[in-house]
């Protein structure tokens, strides 16, 4: 078991290295010269000497492979260089903004689970009933509505017309409501369908039939057995849709002027602040990879059959 977990963890390392390599290659291929961008951002007139000096400072005159190793080392030490705009370490600026983004992400995940678990469960049990139709409609709606538009619709109805919540910014819990709802609609759409499908699958299993013939109460079968197992695929979904959540935070932070990492990233794109862009993309990839690993290990813990199957298969 420990060996298996260690194997899974080690398997992640090459993917992370590759992700960094890809980003590294993109930065090198981009038409922007980091030395030039740095000087332009600092409002210094770029002379040949200054450019050469900066290139040397950034290590741009080293062989590519050495540069790549240096990048990997720096990233491992959370050193993403200095922002071209403020000239302060990128990681410090990012660390100051991460809590806001995590708060938003966590509250949306919580909200989406609170809604999609009962909704998905009920629409599986009352298949083709009104709840099922409603959840199906909601899932199409949630998957197709542009998040920024939904955000503005919510602002229009709940902040402008009804004046229930603030339009933008961060602070009280009221500030958190509209952004979280905006972000969670897309997630609810996915999780509800996922849970519904896996509950329907579980209902076909023999143990359900057996439990029913034994005369166990239907509600006990559903909650204690079916739901417990059916939740598992939803957790995979949680990991796999982390990307949606991340890109969602970028857009939602923009709509609600939420002072998080996503907003900072967009600002950096406009300013061609390459260290910040690189930091966001690499961190997002790492987060995505690590979360999927955690989900996988959690599932292993919850459903021992998985590891058994994988270990017996070559």
């Amino acid at each position: 078991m420990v060996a298996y977990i260690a194997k899974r963890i080690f398997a992640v390392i090459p993917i992370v290295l590759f992700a960094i390599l890809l980003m590294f290659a993109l930065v090198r291929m981009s038409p922007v010269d980091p030395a030039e961008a740095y000087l332009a951002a600092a409002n210094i007139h770029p002379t040949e000497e200054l450019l050469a000096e900066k290139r040397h400072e950034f290590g741009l005159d080293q062989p590519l492979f050495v540069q790549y190793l240096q990048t990997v080392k720096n990233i491992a030490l959370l050193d993403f260089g200095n922002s071209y705009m403020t000239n302060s370490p990128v990681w410090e600026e990012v660390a100051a903004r991460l809590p806001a983004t995590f708060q938003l992400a966590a509250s949306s995940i919580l909200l989406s689970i609170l809604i999609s678990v009962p909704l998905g469960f009920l629409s599986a049990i009352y298949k083709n009933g009104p709840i099922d139709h409603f959840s199906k409609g909601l899932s199409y709606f949630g998957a197709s509505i542009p998040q920024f538009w939904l955000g503005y619709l919510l602002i229009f109805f709940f902040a402008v017309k009804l004046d229930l919540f603030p339009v933008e910014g961060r602070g009280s819990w009221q500030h958190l409501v509209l952004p979280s709802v905006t972000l969670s609609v897309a997630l609810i759409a996915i999780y509800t369908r996922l849970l519904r499908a896996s509950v329907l699958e579980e209902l076909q299993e023999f143990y359900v039939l057996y439990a029913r013939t034994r005369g166990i109460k239907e509600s006990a079968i559903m909650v204690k057995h079916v739901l417990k197992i059916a939740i598992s695929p939803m957790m995979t979904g949680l990991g796999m849709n982390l990307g949606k959540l991340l890109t969602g935070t970028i857009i939602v932070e923009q709509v609600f002027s939420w002072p998080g990492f996503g907003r900072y990233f967009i600002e950096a794109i406009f300013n061609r602040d390459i260290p910040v862009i690189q930091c966001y993309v690499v961190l997002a990839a790492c987060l995505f990879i690590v979360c999927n690993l955690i989900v996988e290990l959690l599932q292993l813990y919850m459903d021992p059959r998985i590891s058994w199957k994988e270990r017996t298969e070559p």
Partner: protein
Amino acid sequence: MISSIRSVKKSKKAIVICSIILFFFFTISILAPWISPHDPIQVNLLQKLSPPSWEYPLGTDHLGRCNLSRILHGARVSLGFASLIFISSLGIGLLVGTFAGYKGGWVDVLLMRFCEGVMAFPNLVLVLGIVGLLGPGLWQVVLALTMVQWVYYARMIRGMVVSMKEQNFITAARISGSSTSKIIRTHLIPNIIPPIVVMGTLEMGWAIMDISALSFLGLGIQPPTPEWGAMIHEGKGFIRSHPELMLYPGLMILFVVISFNILGESLSEHFGVKSRN
């Protein structure tokens, strides 16, 4: 049994309805320059923010431009570029996927590892990263979206090619003397098309969403070109006084994307293929 027949009938109905809607939108996008009542980028400050009238059926925006004309032209931009991204990423995916699956060996391993590496990034994050490095603009967005999307086609097609190579009916056809081109025409293509159609349909929906999201962020289509996401971006400043400015383009995106999504899922039900989600 009966319920499955019913669901097939239902999915057929959905396919027909969604196809008609999308055909309608494609027609609009092609005919936009001829059916629009006004020039979509012509500024007329005397008429700004005017209510719907015979001359301006949906009113005008903050620069006095005709909303209806801008929405019609927006369809052209959204659908046009989404189709472009679809075609280019499918093209690259077909080439790479077939090559990798056919060659096998280290070429296959290397190409597929590359695809997995791209998939390690959340999609839109990588797109934003690429746009950030190349600079904002429509063509950069098209390039970035293509660079990210082709890997999904490549992997899917490679998987199909590999499994096809092993199939008995291919071997049987070859033994019985069919030429390679005939095998490709009568056996390979009919088997490969349904999954591609399903994936392509869903992909179109995503591409439209992504283009509009990037334009909304100010990184995609630049003003004054009419595009739905960009129109919402421009209209958001008038949310208190003229919410309809952002209402119309948003409805259009929702309508088109929902049609693509329902069409994609009904097609996958109809063909019996599993979609990416």
